[in-house]
């Protein structure tokens, strides 16, 4: 049996940052179903926020206010305060590690404007900030190769909880198909989001809720799953991300008539209003028939920025437009639409990354989570751009430290290896044995379609009910599929099927929580309940698995500095 | 058809038979080549290892010389072609850089304008409709039965934005020329690969392996000869051929011709007239095929 003091699942920003923290003292394993540098953190483009004040005077208080207001007052303010206070130090540390930031004329880290931020505080590396930070951390992980054992292309099936304490995980080596148990004193999940549940998404194929659902199945509730962020500028029909930085640099959003419609929705911030507001504005224009050519499409116009500025600040975006839609943004506007992008919800943690299991913040011993898969909550009902790269780095470090401190004094939990292995082997075998006629591809497409249509930017009770029913029916059909690849060697088909199972669970959870929240807040908008309801819903949703059904409970929001006010831009 | 001829260094040195064949075939075709006597070495991708800006300046001076003559520039070496095109691209794409280069050229009485002349390899000229017509009109000895394997040379193919060939990943210009000359083109994967010349002194084994694999392929595809548009490839494939281990093992040998030599043969010149007797690997076995249409 493989043993580590700390086992981290997910090797993106949060996972690698946590590993760098733990390896200072303890033995750490870092497991990923891809290869660390291929993690989805690398796809983030726009920037990482911190109140450095390199471009304009700034303060952590302003960053905190912007974040809390951006989150429509659902963020836990004690956590937000720690998080924004840590930001400058974290940026400088990244720079000291060698991260390649774009610079001002006098050699400082450059910062630009971003949606929802009242000051320009997005530190960036051209328009590939996630890539730059991911590789900087990866370089450090390679430097510390002797103290971090990396398991690349290993899939995490299940969390092992014994007597209320996390003891390890059950995994497969994707290359050989062998199932293994990893015994650990502490387990950290840094497994990312679940945008792939929706049809149009910026997410990689890997964003399939594996970590969230493994925690859920192990008895941990999921917090605020209904809050999904739709990014305003995903490529039309494909969802490929065009960074908000394009708007940060001065890009316009135009409807089919060529108008800058944001004037009607957020006159003071215009294109740089928070993402949920912009996405709803776009969707409203589209629904009213004012999309480009009457289609479900909006134009992102960068022509007036000029080639020089585009090549300096947004070179990757230009190439993406050329490669994926044959449009050169220097000459023509880019076609975009709202695309599922970020999961505000996830595995509930306290502000130290410790996973909690109820409204009283009761910890699940030995289990930690950080990054997009966690819900601290610092983003509340809507995340501001550049706050996620910051979250992954800050909480990657904090969670790593918490796991280290816990594991330092802990014993290995009691774990029955053969029993745990057998459980997973049985599940996998069952999938191999299915001899149905359903097409997994069809099931997946239907899930994505119904979620996009009925649980997307605009929601209402009828659609959500119908969505929940549709997902349940898909879950039944899912049991009647068939595997073509019966081999053990690098069998990507069977993992795609397992991932689909996780996504169907997640889809049901998202739509059920959305149905129950009869208000509009941040990224969750109900056309039948268009107002924010602080009286009844200034609280976090907790979704539990109970006897095969979903049970909803709630958790209070921590409010310290900023009392909820009306949210306008 | 009148052009400024950029000979490159090696055609004046170790492969003078290339220069000889070029002059003779141009004369026979009625192409007027004006030799650029003041032009420097193109840098060959080596000067830029030390100083890329110096390289661009030297090449800008060469371009200015051609501009002053009002003539397009023709190269007879893939390496020259690629390096000149790279300098042209570097300078043309950045007006501030161009000003900097021209500032350096000023005291020598030259200024590079840009956009006035084209830079083409001899094979590109022959591949134009006019070039093809000239060839067809002047062929005296169709090279019927000569199975000819082309070897392009890296610098004339990659990067593709700088290549004058239509499809650098699957070029046909040489093979089409062979057909016009009456020969039978032989296709093989390594015709677009590297001959290894740049590292012949740094890593002889690797260099020989590259050259050897390409030639072995050509032999196994039934080629009678390999024809190349680059004298550095010629040095690697011909002068070093007897030392190449894989060819020694398989007892393969194959004559290597410069492209202008093949053209000159079709135009009626004898092998001696175009320096084929200077080659390290004897071209004698081609005499029988050539003798068919003396």
């Amino acid at each position, binding site marked *: 049996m493989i043993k580590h003091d700390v086992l981290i699942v997910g090797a993106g920003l949060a996972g690698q940052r946590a590993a760098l923290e733990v390896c200072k003292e303890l033995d750490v394993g870092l497991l990923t179903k891809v290869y660390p540098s291929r993690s*989805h953190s690398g796809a983030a483009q726009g920037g990482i926020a911190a109140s450095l004040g390199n471009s304009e005077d700034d303060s952590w208080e302003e960053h905190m206010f912007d974040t809390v207001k951006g989150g429509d007052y659902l963020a836990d303010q004690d956590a937000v305060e720690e998080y924004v206070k840590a930001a400058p130090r974290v940026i400088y540390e990244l720079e000291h590690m060698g991260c390649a930031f774009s610079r001002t004329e006098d050699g400082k880290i450059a910062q630009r404007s971003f949606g929802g931020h009242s000051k320009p505080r997005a530190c960036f590396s051209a328009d590939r900030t996630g890539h730059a930070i991911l590789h900087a951390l990866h370089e450090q992980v390679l430097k510390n190769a002797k103290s971090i054992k990396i398991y690349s292309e290993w899939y995490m099936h299940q969390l092992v909880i014994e007597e209320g304490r996390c003891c390890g995980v059950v995994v497969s080596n994707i290359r050989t198909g062998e199932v293994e148990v990893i015994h650990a004193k502490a387990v950290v999940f840094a497994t990312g989001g679940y945008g792939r549940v929706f049809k149009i998404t910026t997410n*990689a194929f890997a964003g399939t809720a594996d970590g969230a659902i493994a925690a859920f199945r192990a008895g941990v509730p999921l917090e605020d799953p209904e809050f999904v962020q739709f990014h305003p500028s995903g490529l039309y029909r494909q969802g490929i991300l065009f960074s908000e930085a394009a708007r940060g640099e001065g890009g316009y959003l135009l409807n089919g008539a060529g108008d800058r419609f944001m004037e009607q929705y957020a006159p003071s911030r215009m294109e740089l209003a928070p993402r949920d507001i912009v996405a709803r504005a776009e969707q409203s224009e589209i629904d009213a028939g004012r999309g480009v050519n009457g289609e479900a499409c909006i134009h992102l116009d960068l022509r007036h920025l000029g080639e020089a500025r585009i090549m300096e600040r947004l070179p990757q975006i230009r190439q993406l437009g050329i490669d994926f839609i044959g449009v050169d943004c220097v000459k023509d506007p880019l076609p975009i639409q709202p695309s599922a992008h970020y999961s505000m919800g996830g595995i509930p943690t306290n502000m130290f990354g410790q996973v909690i299991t109820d409204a009283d913040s009761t910890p699940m011993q030995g289990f930690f989570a950080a990054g997009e898969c966690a819900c601290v909550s610092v983003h509340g009902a809507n995340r501001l751009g550049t706050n996620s790269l910051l979250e992954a780095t800050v909480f990657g470090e904090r969670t790593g430290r918490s796991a280290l401190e816990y594991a330092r004094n802990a014993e290995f939990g009691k774990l029955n290896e053969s029993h745990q292995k057998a459980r997973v082997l049985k599940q996998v075998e069952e999938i191999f044995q299915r001899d149905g006629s359903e097409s997994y591809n069809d099931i997946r497409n239907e899930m994505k379609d119904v979620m996009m249509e009925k649980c997307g930017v605009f929601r209402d009770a009828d659609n959500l009910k119908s969505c929940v029913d549709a997902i349940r029916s898909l879950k039944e059909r899912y049991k009647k599929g068939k595997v073509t690849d019966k081999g053990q060697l690098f069998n990507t088909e069977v993992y795609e099927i397992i991932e689909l199972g996780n996504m169907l669970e997640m889809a049901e959870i998202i739509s059920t929580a959305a149905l129950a929240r009869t208000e509009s807040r941040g990224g969750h908008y109900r056309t039948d309940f268009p107002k924010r309801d602080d009286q009844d819903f200034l609280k976090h949703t907790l979704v539990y698995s109970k006897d095969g059904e979903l049970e909803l409970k709630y958790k209070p929001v921590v409010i310290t500095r900023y009392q909820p006010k009306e949210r306008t831009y | 058809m009148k052009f400024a001829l950029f000979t490159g*260094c090696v055609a004046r040195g*170790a492969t003078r038979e290339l220069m000889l064949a070029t002059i003779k075939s141009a004369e026979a075709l009625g192409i007027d080549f004006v030799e650029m006597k003041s032009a*420097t070495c193109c840098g060959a991708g*080596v000067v830029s290892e*030390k*100083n890329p800006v110096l390289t661009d300046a030297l090449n800008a001076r060469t371009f200015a010389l051609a501009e002053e003559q009002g003539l397009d520039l023709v190269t007879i070496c893939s390496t020259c072609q690629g390096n000149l095109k790279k300098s042209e691209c570097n300078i043309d794409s950045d007006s501030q850089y161009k000003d900097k280069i021209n500032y350096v050229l000023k005291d020598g*009485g030259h200024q590079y304008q840009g956009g006035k002349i084209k830079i083409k390899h001899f094979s590109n000229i022959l591949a134009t409709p006019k070039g093809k017509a000239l060839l067809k009109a002047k062929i005296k000895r169709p090279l019927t039965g000569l199975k000819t394997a082309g070897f392009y040379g890296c610098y004339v193919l990659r990067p593709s934005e700088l290549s004058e060939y239509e499809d650098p990943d699957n070029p046909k210009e040489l093979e089409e020329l062979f057909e016009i000359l009456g020969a039978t083109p032989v296709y093989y994967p390594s015709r677009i690969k590297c001959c290894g010349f740049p590292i012949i002194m740094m890593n002889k084994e690797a260099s020989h392996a590259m050259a050897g694999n390409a030639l072995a392929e050509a032999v196994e595809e039934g080629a009678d000869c390999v024809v190349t548009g680059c004298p550095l490839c010629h040095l690697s494939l011909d002068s070093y051929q007897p030392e190449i281990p894989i060819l020694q093992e398989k007892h393969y040998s194959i004559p290597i011709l410069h492209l202008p030599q093949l053209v000159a043969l079709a135009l009626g010149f004898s092998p001696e007239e175009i320096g084929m007797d200077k080659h390290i690997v004897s071209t004698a076995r081609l005499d029988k095929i050539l003798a068919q249409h003396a």
Partner: protein
Amino acid sequence: MAKFRIKRYNPEKQAEPYFEEFEYDIPDGATLLDCLNHIKWNMDGTLTYRMSCRSAICGSCGMKGNGHALLACQRQAAHLLKDGSDTITIEPLGNMPVIKDLVTDFQQFWDKVDQVKPYLKNKEKPPELEREQSPHEFKIIDDATTCIMCGACYSDCNVLEVDKNFLGPAALAKAQRFVGDSRDKATRERIKELSKPGGMWDCTHCGECVERCPKPAEPFYRIKELMAVGLKEGVTNNVGARHALSFVKSVKHSGRLNENKIPIESMGYFNIKGLLDLVPVGLRMLLKMKIPPIIHKPVDDVKDVRRIFEEFGE
């Protein structure tokens, strides 16, 4: 209707690889990856390949299309149908062992990246705030930082094909990312390592890495930048560096390459083995009188040439 001719390999089933054809009418705007997904999800679930971001940033989907390395997600499938052909040939990346179908083993690739010590080396205590770096200094490493480690350059490198000891384009480009970084303090140490056999001077300039790179990383140009730094640092006790120095000296003097001098100056006057290596080819050429003229004539107006060299301090 297009044909996808895919190289299959599954050692669990057969010892040898084979080609299998699938037919699919390529929809407008479909990438090669879109087509592979369609084939896998609708025709043959056993078809195995890596993929994740589908937006050319994770580097997972490297493979060969029509014999040349590319990112499957970045290439329009229709663009791979050329010259009236209706078939696209798909194979795994080259220069790597194949695990299954289009999945290759990247271990050696990563080992070589490790060899160049791919992390910032700076023992000084960092300042409280950021270390300063000008936009111009950032520009020097800008291109190299775009590398997504996809392996396309490694796959098609002509030197790696015949010499697995070569560090290869990806590792060398990564090395430049640090050599060129004003915050890295180990320049000389790095250059010395990179100047050893198998290092930067083993690059044969074939340009495949530049052609196949899906990003602005373009390894060959990074390698040339490394060479310039090596020469500037005076790390010249190797054939490649001496070759460059001799070349520059020759062109300065006469405007042309002196082919008689360069082999000797490249090998080095005291490099007996290297000089002896030149004897067979030298003799062969001498016997055919295939030698450059002993009296090396300069180009016309060579004075202007020398002036230009002096302007650049060469």
